């Protein structure tokens, strides 16, 4: 789960990682009466990359200009997202911009430190040769030599190296203690005054670890309203831009269903993974979410295992009776209790195909 920059910087302060002085506002009037040292940076708080390039970061050197900039940023959408908060920070005298991150490398299955002299907005296009990478041995954790080696690669002098060592050590503590998937500072600024300063903060906390981090407030601003509704009801749901509503079980099978539809020239409206369930209500209650997405037809693709076909059939029948499903519904059932499932559907005049290929062909036919 991604944290906003201001939330990340609160954690940075807690762990002694240097950040510029600043405060958060949710309307431009909150600037009135504040003690502010001009000039300031005004930064839109959104959970999307490329914020600077999209015009989400501006500068101001007086209250008047700050208020007009704030008003403008609050009223516009940034890459489709509403800006609810702005972070107001003292503008830094930048000498140099570096890059540093700690993430879990899923191939090596170890935390990985990455640093580069070429920090800033174009980090994604920096050559691999300009990025220094070093794994952290889970049995050892942070050790001084890791910082020494990285500081050398960044070309830092003695004083900055000492600051850098503290910074990396504190980043590692934050990474460990908060079950982070990513702690990234880009840019990590060297100021003209010779100080290291985290100009940005990108912290992502493992969703599955939140039970032990009750102080972390989740924000789901990067989800659409419908995705958020589905999330609250416990569905794994992603909106896409097509017209075929999809319900399947298991992430792999659901993706394979979307792929198969697309290979037939049919564009899916969504990804919806029922997961493993033997509860008819979970099946039934997926339909109102789908219907809100206004698909032209619905394709249910189930391979029964933990999720039994008769349970799914009962859920579909219940949904059909309770909600107004006036669009074509195509069902494929295979696996555990498939005969029983198919019988339940046939009794309610719903045909169930035994394999995915035939189901998709039917969807194609109905979409003509």
């Amino acid at each position, binding site marked *: 789960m991604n944290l906003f920059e201001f939330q990340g910087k609160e954690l940075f302060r807690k762990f002694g990682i240097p950040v510029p002085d600043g405060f958060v506002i949710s309307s431009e009037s909150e600037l009135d009466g504040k003690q502010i040292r001009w000039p300031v940076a005004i930064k839109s708080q959104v959970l999307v990359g490329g914020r600077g390039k999209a015009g989400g970061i501006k500068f101001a050197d007086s209250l008047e200009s700050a208020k007009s900039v704030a008003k403008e940023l609050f009223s516009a959408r940034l890459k489709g997202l509403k800006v609810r908060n702005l972070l107001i920070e003292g503008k830094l005298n930048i000498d140099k911009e570096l890059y540093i991150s700690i993430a*879990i490398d*899923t*191939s090596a*299955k*170890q*935390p990985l430190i990455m640093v580069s002299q070429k920090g800033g907005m174009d980090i*994604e296009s920096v050559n691999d040769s300009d990025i220094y990478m070093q794994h952290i041995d*889970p*049995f050892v954790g942070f050790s001084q030599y890791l910082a020494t080696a990285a500081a050398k690669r960044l070309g830092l002098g003695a004083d900055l190296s000492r600051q850098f060592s503290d910074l990396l050590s504190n980043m590692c503590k934050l990474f*460990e203690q908060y*079950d982070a*998937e990513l702690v990234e500072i880009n840019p990590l600024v060297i100021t003209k005054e010779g100080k290291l300063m985290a100009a940005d903060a990108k912290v992502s906390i*493992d969703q*599955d*670890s939140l*039970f*032990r981090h009750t102080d972390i407030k989740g924000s789901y601003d990067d989800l659409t309203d419908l995705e958020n509704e589905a999330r609250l009801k416990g569905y*794994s749901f*992603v909106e*896409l831009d097509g017209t075929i509503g999809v319900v*399947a*079980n*298991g*992430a*792999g*099978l*659901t*993706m*394979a269903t*979307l*792929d*198969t*539809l*697309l*290979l037939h020239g049919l564009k*899916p409206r969504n*990804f919806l*993974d029922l997961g*493993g369930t033997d509860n008819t209500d979970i099946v039934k209650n997926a339909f109102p979410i789908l219907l809100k997405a206004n698909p032209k037809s619905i394709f249910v693709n189930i*391979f*029964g*295992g*933990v*999720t039994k076909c008769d349970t799914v059939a009962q859920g579909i029948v219940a949904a059909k009776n309770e909600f107004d499903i006036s669009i074509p519904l195509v069902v494929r059932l*295979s*696996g*555990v209790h498939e005969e029983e499932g198919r019988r339940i559907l046939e009794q309610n005049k719903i045909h169930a195909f035994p*394999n*995915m*290929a035939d189901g998709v062909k039917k969807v194609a036919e109905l979409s003509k």
Partner: protein
Amino acid sequence: MVFIDKNTRIIVQGITGHQGSFHSAEMIKFGAKVVAGITPGKGGTKVNDVPVFDTVAECMHLVPSASMISVPAPFVKDAFFEAMENGIKIIYVLTEHVPKHDEVEMYANAKRNGVILIGPNGPGLTVPFESKMGIMPNHIFKKGGVAVVSRSGTLTYEIVKALSDAGLGQSTVLGLGGDAVVGLSFLDMLKALKDDKDTNAVVLVGEIGGTAEEDAAEYIKKGFGKKVVAYIAGRSAPPGKRMGHAGAIITRGKGTAESKIKALNDAGVKVAQYPQDIPSLINEGK
């Protein structure tokens, strides 16, 4: 077959839970030797005629060598360490939503102690009709020479059933697990299957995210000696969107379906467009 056979003595940590009791019963029906269940506080009872103990240490006189862990996510790491410290060498974790940092720690310890860690968050390991640890539906299997290694659950069943329907039985079917950090990888499995006399062909069922498929392709390229075919799910996934489990995410242009398909093709591995095309790719050129 790899890792387990009809003589493997299996324990189930969390056997008294809903999942643990249902799936241990299915495992026994399939032929698996489930010798003990572990649930703290439930020692002395029985589930599916299997004796339940409070701790792993108390059941070690039954000489188990493998454990299936089906306990709530916050307790998985503890259950893993308990099994490992008692000398269990094959540990499969069924549970989903295990914290990533716990997975990193479990993997590092498994590696150091020579433990085979399967999962978390996968359907487990099935050797038709020898033994089974996990949740794959019993009736889809047929004994034969095709090994299936997959990052998915239901998609595995889909492909296993297509193989069985086409008369192609399976030697070993293993779900690696859907999480971003799991114990076994495609590469580990290929190494294990290379000299397995029961296996003459391998199906890799991959999906977007990570580089496990690319690593496998690199290995196959050096000469594997057995036919390998593949299916990759997630061609249609938009970048940066999480599709269900944590494994399925594309970032920074890495881990895309295109990159995986290209790497596999370069290694001489044919990649099926549809899951149901896997059997004909296996039969091609026979």
